[in-house]
């Protein structure tokens, strides 16, 4: 193994002794989750093209444990919304989000997904956070692959530090209730 070129993530903080390593369950679960975020691309326009570049060999999002792009919401962890979401599309996006199992995270990629972008008009949803909760916003029109990778890394930080109990906390239930989900 010594001459191979494999990078491994650093272990979480803990106590090391002879033959044992003690750490918090929270950190281990966070580490595992953060490095195997399966993305679900919801690409409707040009930001989706940038995402294709992000997934391809040059930028290679697979380095971050996102090798498998899931096209079933049920097996995805990270919903990446890329592109203009029209109001007619909003219920579909919402349904996709509802079909994802917990824990689930959302990245809004690009100006349109974040705020409606240049489409200041009656037919376009003014930001996907009007219908589903969003964890990370990636600005840009469209953002470069570096920015999308940066957004994923920001999300990894969130995932690493998230408490394993967060998803059953009253605050989280309240958040979902405010979006009228479930």
């Amino acid at each position, binding site marked *: 193994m010594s001459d191979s070129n494999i990078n491994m993530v650093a272990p979480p903080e803990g106590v090391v002794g002879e033959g044992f390593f003690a750490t918090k369950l929270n950190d281990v679960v966070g580490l595992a989750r953060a490095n195997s975020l399966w993305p679900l691309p919801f690409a409707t326009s040009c930001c989706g093209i940038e995402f294709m570049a992000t997934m391809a060999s040059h930028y290679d999002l697979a380095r971050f444990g996102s090798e498998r792009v899931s096209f079933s919401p049920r097996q995805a962890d990270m919903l990446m919304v890329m592109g203009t979401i029209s*109001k*007619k599309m909003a219920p579909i996006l919402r349904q996709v989000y509802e079909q994802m199992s917990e824990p689930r995270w959302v990245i809004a990629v690009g100006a349109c997904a974040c*705020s*409606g972008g240049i489409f*200041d*008009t*009656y037919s*376009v949803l*003014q*930001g996907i956070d009007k219908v589903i909760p969003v964890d990370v916003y990636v600005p840009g029109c469209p953002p470069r692959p570096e920015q999308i990778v940066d957004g994923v890394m920001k999300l990894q930080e969130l995932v690493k530090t998230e408490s394993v109990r967060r998803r059953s906390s009253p605050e989280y239930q309240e958040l979902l209730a405010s979006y009228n989900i479930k």
Partner: protein
Amino acid sequence: MALETIQIQDKLVETFGESVFNFNQEKDIFSLEVAADKITAVILFLKNDETLRFNFLTDLCGMHYPDGEVNRQFAVVYHMHNWYENIRIKIKVFINGETPEIKTVSNVFPSANWMERETYDFFGINFIGHPQLKRILNMDEMISFPMRKEFPMEDGGRTDKDDRFFGRTIDNY
């Protein structure tokens, strides 16, 4: 022999008399107005007449003139094309602003089906006799007809838009 615009005009006046008027050449397209109740007959005539042969309905759309007199507040515009001689024609029909309705031409040109639905969707113009007059592009729950001038262009739920960047202030400051 090429089809002259005067021929088109003569044929139409001969057949429809007072119901076709305001003939004029607007740039490179020959235009006329038709009375609302005659539109289906005129379109059918233009399509089937042996010399006119306007066999293709290029476009059908609505227009809104909220400042006009009540009977001329909406217009439906038909563009037709004669493929044999490559001649185009534009037909305008003005209709009432309070109850905008006109007969469908989807029985003459099946392609008018979706174009009339679109015109209904954006202007609320009722096409009498249309087989399935419901919204086609906007969401079904929508209650406004967005291309009418009285409805705002922007979304009411916008929260972080700066009017200056969307040309919505007078001097852009």
